[in-house]
């Protein structure tokens, strides 16, 4: 469930195919995940999981795997 939500957030907010959303996908490794896309992604994740992320975590969110780790701090498990 959380995995599906996460994938949907990445796909919708970055405008990419769901199949591209894998743990190794990294920030700035594709043109869609630039700084503008990153802020849209953050807003999407916050809304989907009903959380507010700390600025340090937003800066630190360097990959899909890292995003899962950060969401884990909010008791969201994968």
């Amino acid at each position, binding site marked *: 469930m959380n995995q599906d939500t996460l994938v949907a957030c990445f796909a919708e907010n970055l405008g990419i195919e769901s199949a591209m959303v894998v743990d190794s996908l990294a920030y700035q490794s594709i043109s869609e995940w630039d700084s503008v896309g990153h*802020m849209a992604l953050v*807003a999407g994740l*916050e809304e989907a999981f009903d959380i*507010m992320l700390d600025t340090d975590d937003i800066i630190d969110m360097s990959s899909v795997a890292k995003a899962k780790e950060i969401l884990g701090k909010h008791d969201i498990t994968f």
Partner: protein
Amino acid sequence: MLLKGKRILVTGASRGIGEATARLFAEQGASLMLSARSENVEALAEELNGASEAGIYALAGDISDEDYAKRLVMASRKQLGGLDGLVNNAGILEQGLVGMIQLESVRRMLEVNLVAMINLTQFSLRLMKEGSPAIVNVTSIAGTHGIEGISAYCASKAAVIGFTKSLAKEVAPSGVRVNAVAPGFIDTQMARQLDDEWFQERVESVRMKRIGTPLDVANLSLYLCSDLSTYVTGQTIGVDGGMQV
């Protein structure tokens, strides 16, 4: 109704300029999330809710507490579904000549008047997605021109203007507008706490020969949060009865 359908967060809303802003915005049809340290803000929300078709909510807390700021924005998302406006009004003033003011007091003013404003803005921007969202930062004539006897306060308010201009440039491509209002001498509890002699000098320096009202300031914030000002950003506008022309 100039704000019908708009969802706006107002800080420092329990009294003075913030309270006048909340009352005016509610009259103009906005849905509101009100913030203040005093729990009076919850009673105000209840009162305004009775007279408004839109939802008026409140959450009391200290805006310089990062965790509270986060909860406030989460409550805005939950209760309002997002934000179309933010009025960063919360602020404190502690008087003191530069040689007499304690650093703790300086730090406190910077923390509330500047750091807390930036922190809340960071969170709030993530809820501003559609239309022509507006951020209004309440600075002061003290920040635009300086006033003797409150130099640390002046410094904190001047910093708000720098933040306003920079942020306006940064978020303009996203359609978010950022402006500052600079009240002159306004009849609030904050002004009344100053020395009598100092207070009288300030009143006499107003060219329109009257002290301003909180509503005078709220009216400008109304314009800046409404769609009447969709091409206005990065500005600092005085509301001072001609104190500085």
